């Protein structure tokens, strides 16, 4: 007969309207993240992936149990260098935990950037995965909410990281401070160095991705308040596109600063200034090696904001803690500290042989495959 899947039930949280999503600026979130930037994280020293900010712990005694567990990971994709780097790190972390007997195996389904696929992936895990814990890196926030809700309804622990969902049913939601913090860090840096009326070109990858949109929402607001003339473009992270945009902007007039919502293609942006024979702009990129190297080489005035790549280690560690019955933060806010000019050499040295698409704050230095696995960029 006609059966409604037992695991399917209306989720209260999902019912709240998401129309405000059209305007990405959210004052409360902005203020929260602004404050979190200045909080000294708690947790083990030297292990930022285990640190947390303003944590509110939840009890996980109900999940405590012996033995190696099976983790099921519904990944959004590995379609950009940041996710690739994190994915490598996560697999190295997995090896450690397998060694330790905490995790027996991790089954992964990769949604290849598709919401629909990821929903199906989660449902597959629920039905067939034989999972002890669900780890989910949502492809998009609102769309993944019902599926995550269904995963929660199985009674197994659910860990969400990177992007969030609109339900608080997961045991823990792991993420760095967030897009607003990124936007504040970068905008403040540029505003500090620029004058009112100066032009900033904002290079953005895609519309409609919340972690990226929030970065721009914060930055745009601050630029606005500071009287900085900021124009934004979507580039698809294509360096050729970026170069054309900067060239056209330079043809129109001076560009004093460049702002990026992700470091991909930063080099092309800088080169556009070189090619045009004008001075380097003040610039914010990301902790991607290509940018750090170019930054060093050109000596420009820059900042590398960080969307902490080491967060890819945390979910599996959180799973281990949950099965050990240890408390974990309900919302696990990881530190997110930009790399400033002073630290540049240090990070360059640390990651000397890493490929350009590697992220300096990947946090895997103590993992077994280091550095070979990242240098060779072996994608499992």
């Amino acid at each position: 007969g006609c059966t409604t899947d037992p695991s399917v039930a209306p989720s209260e949280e999902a019912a709240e309207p998401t129309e405000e999503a059209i305007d990405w600026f959210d004052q409360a979130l902005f203020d929260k993240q602004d404050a979190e930037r200045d909080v000294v994280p708690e947790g083990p020293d030297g292990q930022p992936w285990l640190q947390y900010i303003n944590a509110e712990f939840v009890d996980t005694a109900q999940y405590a149990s012996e033995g190696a567990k099976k983790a099921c990971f519904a990944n959004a994709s590995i379609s950009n260098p940041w996710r690739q780097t994190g994915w490598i790190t996560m697999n190295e972390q997995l090896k450690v935990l397998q060694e330790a007997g905490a995790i027996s195996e991790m089954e992964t389904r990769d949604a290849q950037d598709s919401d629909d696929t990821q929903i199906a992936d989660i449902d597959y895990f629920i039905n067939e995965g034989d999972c002890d814990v669900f780890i989910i890196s949502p492809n998009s926030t609102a769309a993944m909410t019902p599926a995550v809700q269904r995963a929660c309804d199985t009674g197994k622990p659910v860990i969400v990281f990177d992007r969030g969902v609109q339900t608080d049913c997961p045991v823990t939601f792991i993420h760095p401070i967030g897009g607003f913090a990124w936007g504040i860090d970068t905008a403040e840096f540029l505003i500090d160095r620029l004058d009112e009326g100066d032009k900033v070109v904002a290079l953005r990858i895609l519309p409609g991705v919340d972690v990226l949109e929030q970065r721009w929402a914060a930055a745009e607001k601050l630029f606005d308040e500071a009287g900085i003339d900021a124009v934004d473009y979507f580039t698809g992270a294509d360096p050729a596109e970026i170069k054309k945009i900067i060239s056209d902007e330079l043809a129109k007039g001076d560009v004093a600063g460049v702002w990026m919502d992700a470091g991909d293609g930063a080099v092309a942006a800088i080169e556009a200034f070189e090619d045009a024979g004008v001075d380097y702009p003040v610039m914010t990129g990301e902790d991607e090696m290509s940018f750090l190297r170019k930054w060093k080489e050109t000596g420009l005035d820059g900042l590398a904001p960080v969307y902490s790549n080491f967060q890819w280690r945390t979910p599996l560690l959180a799973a281990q803690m949950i099965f050990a019955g240890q408390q974990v933060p309900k919302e696990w806010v990881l530190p997110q500290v930009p790399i400033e000019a002073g630290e540049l050499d240090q990070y360059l040295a640390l990651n000397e042989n890493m490929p350009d698409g590697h992220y300096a704050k990947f946090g895997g230095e103590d993992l077994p495959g280091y550095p070979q696995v990242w240098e060779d960029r072996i994608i499992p």
Partner: protein
Amino acid sequence: MTVAATETRSAGQRLAELGRVLVSPRGAVFLLLAVLLVAIVVLNPSFAEPGQFIRFVQRVAPVAIVAIGQYFVIVGGEFDLSMGSVVTAQVVIAGNLIGQDESRSLPVLALMLAFGALVGLVNGLIVSFLRVPSFIATLGMMLALLGGVLYWTGGAATGNPADGFREIGRGGIRGIPVLEILPWSVVVLAVVLAAAIWFTKRPFGRTVIALGDNPVTARYSGTRSWWVKTATFIISSLSATIAGVLLVGYAGVHPSVGRGYEFTAITAVVLGGVVLGGGRGWVVAAAAGAFSLEALFTLLNFAGVPSTYRDAVQGAIIILAVAYSATVFRARRRGRATPTSQASGASDASAEGPDATAPARPAPIPSTPRADNETKGGS
């Protein structure tokens, strides 16, 4: 009575002729380009400075070269959807294999060319011998190639290749009087375009067009169809390779370099009045199509049109441009062709229907298993 009247024409007649060419489907793209360039200059006079303009040409070079390569495939009656992936693959190959070791530039360049030729060869053989429609064959190649490259590199290349290699796409001959710099890209584009023009005038180039126009006739005339077809795919992959070399210099290595180039190239070629389905079109117009597209983007940048609108404007423009050519061409064809083409049709009852003057709607996707396809698979 055979030879055209070649008395010298007056300047007025020439001008009138030029005007006619410009509004004809063949010349429309040049008109479009001129309008766009003028509009850009109005918005930003500095664009007209030689130094600025040559930078524009430099930037268009890769797209134009890809369009030139795609031209050969399209005019031969097929499609190449794998060009974008070839560009990406080549960019990544250059980044990974050359690295910072400048001495590897030449060997790797040779390898890239060989790889490009191989991709084209595979495309061509699949289309010719397995008779997979080129749309599908090159779509498969597009997926497989991009996936393969990403798999090989773990998604991101090691880094940009040595500056010496990148000089081709980035640098130029400095100290040129008016221009101050003559980018190598422009030189390469000029060479490629000249080679393409030369090629289209060569027996081989004419054969490609004839094959696109009527594969049966080409076969009945002794054309080695499979090879001609395969050669066009090789040309397009090689042109994508050259574009890759320029792009790795101009932009650097990134897996998104080259993304969407196949559609851009096809759009440019169609804007240039080349007929999908083959047999008609001029390679210079195809290159002009690429220039028009880029000029359009530049214009939108200068006009401060939000980048989200660009796609919409591009979409509207290509529809209008193609509709214009199609309509004008039909009108012209109907007006001029009726008497003679009818007289010749002794055996085509089906073409003599009441409204038979109207040619079939623009060719559907050309695909290999046409009734006229070689059944024996060439020599």
